[in-house]
């Protein structure tokens, strides 16, 4: 019998894995929206490549979440049959693409974190997460390289590109804090050596980001107030629209094989 939303038993490990899986899916989906519309063909290729990397990460993480949950849920159930309030991704990643500067700044902020995160997670005591980390770390390293090169060129390009990129930084800055927040659910996993303490990653992240931004002749905002909520299902209005497109087929034709 087809149901409208699946139920998920969010034990600490399941919740932790779903958070990362949703991050990858939402960002991968956003990047895929560019396909056929990029500023040059070479960039259509790059955006699609990054999108495919992230979709791959999402699938592996969803599969692991399903295994950890031990019930009947699977990758497509998680992706297509959870509503906005059940999604656990960072607010940063559901923000609309905006212009190319907006997309590159979002990618840059996230990849600078993901690169550090996955490298640290290689040492996770959870074998599956460690293996996913080893693969994802190489992908994130490339995403960071690619987006950094663009931040530099856009910041230190023309007046227009500089203005657009600065505007994107100013707009997205308040979403960066959420990447480093740790809550009760994760505390236990960190103590067990399964998860890593992302709070500790922030100084190095800031160093990387500041370096590139400076080389790009841009500036980081000084405000410290950070948006939160994605990790507990309190999303921006953007996620609802994203999911109505993503989930359209499964919602319209429930319970079928595609």
């Amino acid at each position: 019998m087809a149901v409208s939303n699946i139920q998920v038993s969010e034990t600490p490990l399941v919740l932790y894995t779903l958070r990362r899986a949703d991050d990858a899916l939402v960002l991968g989906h956003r990047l895929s929206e560019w396909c056929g519309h990029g500023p040059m063909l070479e960039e259509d290729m790059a955006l699609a490549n990054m999108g495919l990397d992230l979709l791959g990460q999402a699938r592996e993480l969803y599969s692991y979440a399903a295994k950890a949950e031990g019930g009947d849920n699977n990758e497509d159930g998680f992706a297509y049959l959870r509503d906005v309030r059940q999604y656990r991704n960072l607010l940063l990643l559901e923000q609309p693409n905006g212009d190319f500067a907006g997309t590159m700044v979002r990618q840059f902020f996230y990849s600078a974190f993901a690169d550090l995160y996955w490298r640290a997670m290689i040492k996770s005591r959870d074998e599956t997460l460690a293996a996913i980390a080893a693969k994802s770390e190489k992908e994130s390293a490339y995403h960071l390289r690619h987006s950094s090169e663009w931040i530099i060129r856009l910041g230190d390009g023309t007046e227009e590109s500089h203005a657009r990129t600065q505007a994107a930084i100013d707009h997205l800055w308040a979403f960066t804090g959420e990447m480093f927040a740790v809550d009760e659910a994760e505390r236990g996993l960190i103590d067990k050596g399964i998860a890593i303490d992302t709070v500790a990653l922030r100084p190095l992240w800031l160093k990387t980001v500041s370096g590139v931004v400076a080389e790009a002749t841009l500036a980081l905002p000084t405000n410290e107030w950070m948006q939160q909520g994605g990790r507990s299902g309190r999303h921006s209005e953007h996620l609802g629209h994203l999911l109505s497109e993503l989930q359209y087929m499964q919602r319209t034709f429930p319970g079928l094989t595609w």
Partner: protein
Amino acid sequence: MYTQALNSSDADDRSLEDAEQAASFQARIDAEERIEPNDWMPAAYRKTLTRQISQHAHSEIVGMLPEGNWITRAPTLRRKAALLAKVQDECGHGLYLYAAAETLGSSREELVDAMLAGKAKYSSIFNYPTLTWADIGVIGWLVDGAAIMNQIPLCRCSYGPYARAMIRVCKEESFHQRQGYEIMLTLCRGSAEQKAMAQDALNRWWWPVLMMFGPPDQASQHSDTSTKWKIKRFSNDELRQKFVDATVPQAQFLGLTISDPAMTQDADGHWRYSEIDWTEFKQVLAGNGPCNRDRMAARRKAHDDGAWVREAAAAYAEKQKYRPAAQAAE
């Protein structure tokens, strides 16, 4: 001597062409030799190949749009990744083809400007809309299938860069057709509604796909020299027939019917399809198909929206040229 970079060619001054050069050129073609970028070639050979290769490239790029339309709505994560990879491949194919066209002396920018200005064509098939998920299956199965039929002979085209680009393309294209057919299989083995969706998609795409092979042999204006110069190895009708013969059994396996009730199999096993209504084809070529305006608008928007990005990259590169000198002066 000179390179593959942007050469200007006195392409149209045929009176200067030596009859001896033309004869030895034809002898090379007849001997199945490959013509390479810096070789002497008749102006008409250069012109026809530039047109054909660049229009092939435009087709790949515009072809990203009808399938790209369903990436965000793909019904499973596996289908989503496969479709994104497929559309990315089409972009790659466009890039290989522009690279090949550029070896003949025109720049990619010139060629793309011509397409965006409506002066260069792309394949008619991409002016049709993808209305359901089943359309994605049909496109992979039939549109890529038709493209493969066209592209395999091109792997032996006389012009080296085009032939090599086609070999690369053909290697990648076979996953595209399999992906499409697998989607069709899944739908046809699914619910009644899914099967109906598959049948409806096939009904809408069948005739436009047959038109992809171009006008009937007696009506086509480009064929004679293309055949003499081994650019075109088989005629439109030959390829179309080959395609139909391969496809009908595939449709039968799916349990789908082809919207040509009068089609019959002849004594040699060939499927004789009904007369094609070419008025639709002419209208689509003239810009009046269901999606021509949308496709052009989408490509123009991408190009225009991307201008500031390209300018920024160029400005940055320019600045780098002067920086080392500025640092040395300090």
